[in-house]
């Protein structure tokens, strides 16, 4: 323990601790300001709870979509920039189904317009009375189709586009995925047009408005459904990873692909399973996201993508639970940031958190082990 080791320790403290210290101070200041705002009545407790609820729900969507991204990121070793557009594709496939069923297979409106999710303002979801309570079957069918379609899409893209160049490394794959992203996004725009449209009938959507101290917090049936679907699927993934052989193989592969290969786990099979699970969850998250917010647009998924990356990185790439937790943190950040900063910067704040994590702790804040 010479002088230099003391020096080293001091050095590492200066490098690591001040960052923590600064972050701590910022956190304290934010809490302080929160208390001040609550005390002065700038912010009601009810509004705060609404924001938190909004953040949690947003976080569930992000987390659900993030599981797939995290899994492919660690097992295939590349950042799939097309992931956001898988979400959009899933959403449109599901909502086309929902429209067609809710529209009575063409009896309520032109079937083409239904299948195109009312492109060009030809049909409105509100007019069809679509919501989880009025048209449960249509919504359920859309949910299933969104998952199934996205699985098929993800598998096809992997087979024809990613697989042939899998050997050339993460960066060429990343660049290729950007190509996939643009191709998908603009095909969707070409077919479904570039308008954002409402898809649900929110007027007749049941919900509750419990009184909370100084106001009310609105909770709709779609909020509840999102919690149930996302929570259920996350639980399912948990069981799958912990209890099944496939889950073990996936965990092994995300830790070390070369090792997994020599220990004889059929990697191609694992990769396929990854796309199936990841794709399914992603598609469903797209459908649920649209159901929850009530509108659909060709760049929904793309706008979500960076938030999902933020969540995945925050949680530690490869970690399923990390993705979920990261999703909640990012969702909450994006939703509650408006308490402190102008709303235009809410999304920027979430990105800021991500950049901070990448720079300070690139292995993620929940890291320890990967996958599970």
């Amino acid at each position, binding site marked *: 323990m010479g002088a230099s080791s003391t020096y080293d320790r001091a050095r590492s403290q200066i490098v690591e601790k001040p960052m923590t210290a600064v972050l701590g101070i910022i956190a304290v200041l934010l809490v302080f300001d929160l208390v001040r705002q609550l005390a002065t009545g700038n912010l009601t407790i009810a509004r705060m709870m609404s924001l938190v609820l909004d953040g949690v729900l947003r976080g569930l969507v992000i987390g659900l979509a993030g599981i797939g991204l995290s899994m492919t990121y660690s097992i295939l070793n*590349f*950042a799939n920039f097309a992931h956001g557009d898988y979400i959009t594709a899933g959403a449109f496939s599901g909502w086309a189904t929902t429209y067609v069923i809710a529209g009575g297979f063409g009896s309520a409106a*032109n079937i*083409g*317009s239904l299948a*195109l999710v009312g*492109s*060009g303002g*030809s049909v409105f979801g509100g007019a069809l009375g679509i919501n989880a309570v009025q048209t449960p079957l249509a919504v359920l069918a859309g949910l299933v189709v969104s998952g199934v379609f996205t699985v098929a899409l993800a598998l096809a893209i992997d087979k024809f*586009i990613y697989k*042939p*160049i899998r050997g*050339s490394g*993460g*960066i*060429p794959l*990343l*660049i*290729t995925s*950007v*190509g*996939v*992203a*643009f*191709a*998908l*996004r*603009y*095909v969707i*725009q*070409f*077919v*479904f*047009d*570039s308008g954002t449209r409402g898809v649900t009938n929110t007027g007749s959507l049941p919900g509750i408005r419990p009184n909370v101290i100084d106001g009310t917090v609105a909770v709709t049936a779609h909020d509840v459904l999102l919690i149930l679907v996302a929570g259920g699927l996350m639980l399912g993934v948990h069981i799958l990873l912990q209890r099944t052989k496939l889950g073990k193989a996936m965990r092994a592969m995300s830790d070390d692909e070369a090792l997994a290969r020599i220990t004889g786990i059929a990697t191609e099979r694992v990769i396929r399973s990854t796309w199936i699970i990841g794709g399914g969850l992603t598609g469903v998250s797209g459908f649920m996201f649209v159901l929850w917010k009530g509108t659909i647009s060709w760049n929904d998924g793309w706008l979500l993508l*960076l938030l999902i*990356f*933020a969540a995945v*990185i925050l949680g530690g790439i490869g970690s399923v639970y990390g993705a979920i937790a990261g999703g909640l943190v990012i969702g909450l950040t994006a939703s509650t940031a408006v308490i402190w900063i*102008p709303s*235009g*910067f809410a*999304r*920027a704040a979430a*990105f*800021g958190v*991500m*950049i901070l994590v*990448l*720079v300070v702790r*690139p292995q993620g804040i929940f890291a320890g082990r990967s996958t599970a």
Partner: protein
Amino acid sequence: MSDDESGGEYGQSTEEQRAVVMGIDFRNDGLMLLTMLLGIYIIYLLAGLVIGFPFRGLMNQIGQLTFWIAVFAMASLALNLHWGYTGLFNIGIVGFMATGVYVTGILSKPVFGSGTSAAEIGGFGLPLWIGIIGGTVAAGLLGLIAALPALRLRADYLAIVTIALSEIVRFSLLSDSLSGHEIAGYRVGLGGGDGVILDYQDPLESLIRALSAPFDLILGEQGWLWNDVYLGIVVDFVANFIPNNPKPVVDNFAYSAVLLLILGGFYVVIRRMGNSPFGRVLKAIREDEDVTNALGKNTNMFKIKSFVVGCALMGLVGILWFGTQGSVTPNTFRPRITFYIWIALIIGGAGSNSGSVMGGAVFAAFLFQGPRYFKNVIETALGNPEAPSSFGQAMLPVSNGDVVPFLLYTLDSIRQLQLFMMGVVLIVLMHRRPDGMLGHRKEPASSIPLTRPIKRSGGGDTVATDGGETDE
């Protein structure tokens, strides 16, 4: 080949020197570029002439084509410095462009006054050249701020950080809270979602007036080059061919020509950076940063320099690109612009400067402007028919065997479809030609030709006949 005059002193035969400079046969590179450009222009002209495109429109297309070639080639060169040389995966290019454009705008916009509408914001009213320098420097500074923490990250993380940064820039530009403020007596701001009207003096006019200064001094006039030569002679001459309001067409051409000159400057500067010990270290960092560091190079410094210079140049390209558009809004600066430039670079082949220029030209001609031109030409040929307004309406007649509405809809949606096509092109390139059009090229990074020095200190030619390597 102006670049490397000094080689001769060291005993290379002039033959060798002329044929192979820096390991590239430059004459062929230049030739290839010229041939390609010529080809592009001929295709454009022919397509227009055959269809009977109006002359004015044709000239506009050609001027526009030149503009895009210059812009994408410059951006691609700047990106090549980042990715091709240093291996820095920057997918936030558009953020640096936006920074450059906005800072230039704010510095050089006229001061807010009675003439400005209340909703609008003013600027600092500085001369345009100060604005351009300011914008370029600001983009470089943003690069520096990003570089300090982010350059330690692996490539894919850097990608995510840079694209997030570019989106943060866009959100900031969109934000109401920064849209307009009183600063030191000036009413300035970012304009929020409405964007900024770039009502400074026209860049072309500024440039020509600036160049006019020495002539003005001699002739005792004001803006002689602009008033008498440009407006008086050039525009008047063109009026013989385009009688109705020829100035915009000439402006378009002249500005594009200026951009081509600037592109030449970009090319020389970046090529020199690359073909030098500096560029050699950048390449070494791209290949293996640890090794480069262990060889005694302060790799962080090199990376920061490369990143900042590249970002500043991207800012400058942004200014040259959007600076003449009259106004910009934050949503102009979406990530797809970054995507364009990446495709241009990958078409030409990352790592090669000549490739970057070619990639920029090919992208501009065939992927960017080409489809739009094609649409114009076809629509002109068909007499501007009415296209269906949605995919559904387009598909309906298809079931009856009538594909015309579908084709018209497709043509009408060319702007979306061209992005789809670009995506496909990128995928195909990554599959078939990941090294770009020119393939894998050896372009040794040195400021001199790397031939064996003729001065042999004895020993003769024993080496080559060593029998080769027998190991492994």
